[in-house]
């Protein structure tokens, strides 16, 4: 990803620290860094969120458009993810350099949201066979400081939570052609029910132990990691193993269990924070990148 070069001495130092449950920045193995989230900071989008964890910076913008449903799924809307690794993160992402990483993250997101338990596409249907909503989720990775998948997962969930889809007052079939009327009041909109949207957790295996929220240096010391996406009702919607190493079966089960516990805790904290932010209402001052 980035240009950090670690000497073998530094790698051994990190390894021993993790064995002793004491990482370079003082965290324990199961602790996250402090995060900052702000939603609705891009007024030209229907929903947006910015997430800041350590050195990782993610910006998500949501745009909603009217579209025709697929022929083989006439009652469902569409959800499309697009990830862009900006060159601001590292010069290696210039031009098409960041495309591989972007495809991987976008695949993980698609796998996480594909089950109906997580996101029911039927809620996006307006007129079966004729009109549906298409939600474009665009992720912009501004800085890479380790733990990209988790940050993207949280930012996407926060952005979808803040999305306002314009309310449709009338949708009729006028002689075979769809006739859609939107509400005149631009603040009149429907929100998505994000209570069961997935949270992505990465568990990084370093030495004999596994950690959450690795920094860039810790990621370079790990041989393999598991990226799992958890739904708040306890189910797991996708699991992928990254890295070039292999893991034992027992370790795999233990990692899943730890991921489940942490995922539930993370999700609860996120929903509490988003509810708190919502309570400020429309008078909230938006800082964006100025703070």
């Amino acid at each position, binding site marked *: 990803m980035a240009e950090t070069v670690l000497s073998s001495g530094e790698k051994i130092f990190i390894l021993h620290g993790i064995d002793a449950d004491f990482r370079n920045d003082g965290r324990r193995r199961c602790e996250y860094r402090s995060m900052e989230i702000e939603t609705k900071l891009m007024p*030209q989008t229907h929903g947006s969120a910015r997430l800041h964890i350590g050195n990782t910076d993610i910006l998500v913008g*949501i745009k909603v458009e009217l579209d025709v449903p697929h022929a083989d799924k006439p009652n469902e809307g569409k959800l499309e993810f697009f990830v862009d690794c900006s060159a*601001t993160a590292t010069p290696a992402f*210039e031009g098409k350099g960041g495309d591989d990483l972007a495809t991987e993250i976008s695949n993980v997101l698609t796998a996480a949201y594909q089950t109906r338990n997580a996101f029911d596409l039927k809620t996006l249907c307006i007129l079966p066979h004729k009109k549906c909503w298409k939600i474009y989720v665009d992720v912009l990775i501004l800085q890479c*400081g380790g733990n990209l998948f988790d940050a993207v997962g949280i930012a996407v969930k926060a952005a979808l939570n803040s999305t306002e889809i314009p309310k449709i007052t009338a949708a009729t079939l006028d002689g075979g052609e769809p006739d859609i009327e939107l509400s005149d009041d631009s603040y009149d909109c429907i929100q998505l029910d994000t209570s069961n949207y997935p949270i992505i957790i990465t568990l990084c295996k370093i030495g004999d132990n596994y950690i959450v929220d690795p920094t860039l240096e810790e990621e370079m010391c790990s041989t393999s990691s598991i990226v799992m996406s958890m739904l708040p009702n306890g189910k797991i919607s996708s699991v992928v193993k990254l890295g070039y190493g292999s893991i034992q079966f027992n370790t795999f089960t233990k990692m899943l269990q730890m991921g489940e516990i942490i995922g539930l805790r993370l999700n609860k904290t996120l929903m509490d924070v988003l509810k708190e932010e919502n309570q400020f209402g429309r008078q909230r001052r938006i800082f964006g990148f100025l703070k």
Partner: protein
Amino acid sequence: MIEAENIEDQNGLRPDGRRALELRQIRVKMGVFGQADGSAYIEQGNTKILVTVYGPHQPRGSTGRNTSNISKGIVNCQYSMAVFSLSSGERKRKPRGDRKSQERSLQLKHAMEAIIHLEIYPRSQIDIYVEALQVDGSEYCASVNGATLALIDAGIPIKNYAIGCTVTLINNPSLEDEDNTLEKGVLDANYVEECTPGVTLSVVALPNNDSTSKDGLIVVAQGAGQRLHLSQFESLKARVLYGCQDIRSILDHAVREYLTEQSLPSLFHVALN
């Protein structure tokens, strides 16, 4: 395409309440990212641009294999727009790689080559990456301003501030003759005003330090829109240099404030008034 009905309002005010020579609100933050060598975030009205600078470092990739310029450094720019950045509602399909972005990258490179002392960085490369988060008119000029600030944040010595400003001449034949301040061109147009029939001139200038002389070196100038008659060019030029001078003083103040915050109290403490 947005239809602009009444661009010329009464009392010489534009639709957003500004006068002809008034700029939009500029807000600046330097040092946004810790990992980049230099970074800056600039907001001009609703146009939000993020610029990062990496360098000077060893040339990489295709630029590195070209060994003809051993005596000078290389400046490498990339202009990219976020997919959700357009204010007019549509979503952009590709963030970079289309003709407009490539042209803007090249123009940005020309502007930056004018202010960086490339002779003191032989065999090195400086990367400047611009990410446009929201686009509402004069995004190229805002990116030039942001790039200047990012270079200052990166500690790369520059000859002068490179300031970009747009001036738009609106061809509205129904304008009355009495109130013709707007006819000579308006500064810092937003997207709606840029879409009206007329010509938009984007100028990057190196304004002079003293506020009395309104001259400066023009580095890059590009026009967009309809044809511009040469007789109107001088007055537009005067207006845009005036605008550049104003933007320069705003950015200078922001830079001094940022550096004073960051530095320890010392003899170089600058009075901010």
